[in-house]
């Protein structure tokens, strides 16, 4: 809600009054364009021999392997990993190997994978921002995999790829139940935010909340589909 809702309403009404006519003029001016394009396309189809008109076969749509969904199920069933619990300490040089082990049990959409620059994190335990325990590595791996699924979901929706969309929707329902993210289901602050809000939005095919969340939190996670959140 705005601070001055009466002003917002007055401006909105004024905008519609002022620019209403302009939209109609633009529509009239360009109304003929689709008809012309359709006519030209029909002419081309009629003149080109049938074999050439079909062109090269389009690449097959992306499909999500059943193994990815099974991995997601397994994570839902795995024990919780609360973030404040003490977990195995790791040296800076051990981070990548630990992340690799954890990522092997985490589902990724086809074409995505574990992508964090572990060597680029601050190296020593004296730096507060350094990562030096297995729990934090697991949290980052799981969270970033969730990001890859949110971005993939938006891509599948944009492509109209119903099969991939159904798989991504199913995984997004699981993400809040993954071991390091599960605690947020009990946290009164987070219960209605983050992954807990993305899951029902995905189920309702409501791209707005998914895109807003991915844009705010997932832009640092590289995937082949990041254009959909830019």
């Amino acid at each position: 809600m705005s601070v001055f809702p009466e002003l917002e309403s007055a401006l909105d009404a004024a905008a519609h009054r002022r620019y209403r006519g302009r939209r109609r003029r633009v529509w009239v001016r360009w109304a003929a364009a689709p008809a012309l394009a359709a006519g030209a396309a029909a002419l081309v189809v009629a003149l080109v021999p049938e074999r050439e008109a079909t062109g090269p076969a389009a690449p097959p749509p992306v499909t999500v392997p059943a193994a990815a969904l099974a991995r997601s199920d397994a994570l839902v069933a795995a024990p919780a990993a609360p973030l404040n619990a003490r977990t195995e300490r790791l040296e800076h040089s051990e981070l990548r190997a630990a992340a690799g082990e954890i990522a092997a049990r985490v589902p990724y959409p086809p074409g995505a994978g574990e992508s964090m620059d572990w060597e680029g994190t601050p190296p020593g335990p004296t730096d507060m921002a350094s990562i030096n325990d297995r729990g934090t590595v697991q949290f980052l791996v799981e969270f970033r995999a969730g990001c890859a699924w949110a971005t993939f979901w938006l891509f599948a929706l944009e492509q109209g790829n119903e099969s991939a969309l159904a798989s991504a929707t199913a995984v997004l329902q699981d993400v809040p139940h993954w071991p390091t993210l599960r605690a947020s289901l009990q946290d009164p602050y987070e219960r209605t935010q983050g992954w807990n809000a993305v899951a029902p939005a995905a189920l309702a095919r409501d791209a707005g909340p998914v895109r807003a969340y991915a844009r705010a939190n997932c832009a640092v996670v590289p995937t082949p589909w990041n254009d959909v959140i830019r």
Partner: protein
Amino acid sequence: MDGWSDERLLTETPSVPAAFAVFYRRHEGPMLGYFMRRTGDAELAADLAAETFAAALLGASRFRGDGNAVAWLYGIARHRLMRSFERGRVEDRARRKLAMPRLEVDDELIERIERLAGEERAVELLDRLPADQAEAIRAHVLDERSYKDIAASVQVSEAVVRKRVSRGLTTLRELL
């Protein structure tokens, strides 16, 4: 439209008039805070903000998409403020041209604007904190993002984000 850039919201306003309300909501708070800091009067700030946004709506069809929308908007705001100082009153030319009704500024609105000015002051103080603490407070307190989301975005543990927010808020309390 919530995902559109400021520049796109302005350039699309002539064909999609609802875009201007999104632009307004995005800049209303900072604009009211801007006028509050310069006038110290919530009623005057509301009046100036109304005239500034009305002028922006009138000018939206001339806005060039390759310009900076925020700089353009504050250019209008500065001009309206200077004119009000020179003339001893706030102009209402843009609002009259748009046939906008005169809006009542009641006590509740004045209170909301004054509270907003206090928040704006806190935002200014954020610039005096270490960058990592300011970023954590902005994300958690102002943008209402969870500790987990912030931790994943800046690639640290959740505990680190909690510490940064806590230390930053302690310093802010000392500065206030």
